[in-house]
């Protein structure tokens, strides 16, 4: 489902003496449908960078990133938007809060975007918010004012609302209590069972061991420093 070939990434800092920082070289791996792969490596090894490149948020310097039949590295913006809408989900660590939109709508939005009718979208959103223990009294409010933990759970609910064939998870269980952590893990397992190809960053080792089928060590893609 996800296939990364010869991927490399550089940052050119034009305003700092045009320094070119090579952060990734020759990344090659595939993730099949129904498989969950954990990215590992030290902090700074490029796990988040890789994830962002797959999502199209960072621009690849060279190589291919196939998600389904779209090459994210060379696709037009609208193709990537379409991919994000239908195929590729992303649960980041932080909710990008949209002002004045009710929590229930925030969660239902990805479903509405792919044409699910309002009742069905709300039903799914209610179910997810309930499972993630967001009190029902908050559903009509904007998450702007919620605590950090509540915002993260809203974000997870939103990320899992639509059953994407491919899913990127950036520390989905960080700072969750035991009950909610358990819920998130079972959501991941359900997505896997549903055939989703999942790439995740898990600092929570027991969680990683439970859901991940294998690990990819990102430091293998770190360019060797010139001597």
């Amino acid at each position, binding site marked *: 489902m996800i296939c990364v070939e010869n991927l490399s990434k550089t*940052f*050119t*800092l*034009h*305003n700092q003496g045009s320094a070119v920082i090579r952060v990734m070289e020759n990344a090659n791996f595939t993730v099949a449908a129904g498989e969950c792969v954990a990215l590992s490596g030290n902090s700074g090894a490029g796990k988040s960078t890789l994830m*962002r490149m797959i999502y*199209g*948020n*960072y*621009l690849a310097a060279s190589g291919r990133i196939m998600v389904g039949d779209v090459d994210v590295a060379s696709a037009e*913006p*609208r193709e*990537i*938007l379409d991919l994000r809408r239908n195929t590729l989900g992303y649960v980041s660590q932080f909710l990008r809060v*949209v*002002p*004045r*939109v009710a929590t229930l709508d925030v969660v239902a939005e990805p479903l509405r975007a792919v044409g699910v009718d309002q009742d069905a979208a709300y039903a799914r959103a209610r179910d997810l918010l309930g499972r993630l223990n967001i009190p029902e009294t908050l559903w009509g409010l904007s998450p702007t004012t919620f605590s950090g933990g509540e915002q993260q759970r809203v974000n997870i609910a939103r990320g899992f609302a639509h059953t994407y064939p491919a899913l990127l998870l950036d520390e989905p269980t960080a700072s969750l209590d035991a009950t909610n952590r358990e819920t998130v893990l079972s959501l991941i397992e359900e997505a896997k069972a549903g055939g989703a190809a999942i790439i995740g960053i898990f600092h929570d080792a027991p969680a990683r061991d439970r859901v991940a089928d294998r690990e990819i060590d990102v430091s293998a893609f770190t360019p060797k420093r010139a001597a």
Partner: protein
Amino acid sequence: MTPLLSVQNVAKYYGARVGCEGVNFDLYPGEVMGIVGESGSGKSTLLNCLAGHLAPDAGKVLFDTRANGMQDTVTMSEPERRMLGRTDWAFVHQNARDGLRMSVSAGGNVGERLMAVGARNYGDIREQAIDWLGRVEIATDRIDDRPRQFSGGMQQRLQIARNLVTGPRLVFMDEPTGGLDVSVQARLLDLLRGLVREMGLSAIIVTHDLAVVRLLADRLMVMKSGQVVETGLTDQVLDDPQHAYTQLLVSSVLQV
């Protein structure tokens, strides 16, 4: 899929000075594109060329018309272009005074485009005006008040209602939130976002406010000295800018 708007090599010169030059892009139905750049970068010149307010010195601006498919709006006759301007196109000015009739009531402002395309039933016009005032969150008992009596944010929302009432397919916006308080901006942006989604509008938004494009635009075009220096997915351009100027622009934004 055919693009709604196809811009090919558009250029506009002010004497020896470049207004904008070599601009190319396709805009597809439902897409929202932001154009950012500092004052004098040519973004407003470009917008005015696209909207038919300025005649470009070179290039084509093809629009997918309902009747005849792709037509070059630069060479089409003025009546046709003006007809587009009050049916399929909308233009939201930075200054509401430029986009509203200040001596005509809110209802009359919203109704004008309807009457311009032949609506002749007062009750229907009034009903649609009331509906639209509601959608842009203006109390319907203000329908007979003149825009002078409105706050800046209300005037801007009224301008949006006046523009969208005929169900346009392409909306041009020139700094739609410029000159408004931050809280008023947020409300306006949220409203625009909702309307764009709900109506499936395509839009081109010129602004120097990166937060505005992050919230509204799918795609981004960065301009400097009349040239397009970078284009791409909005979050990609903002989070991983490639061109020196874009990097400077992004790094110059104050973090809140």
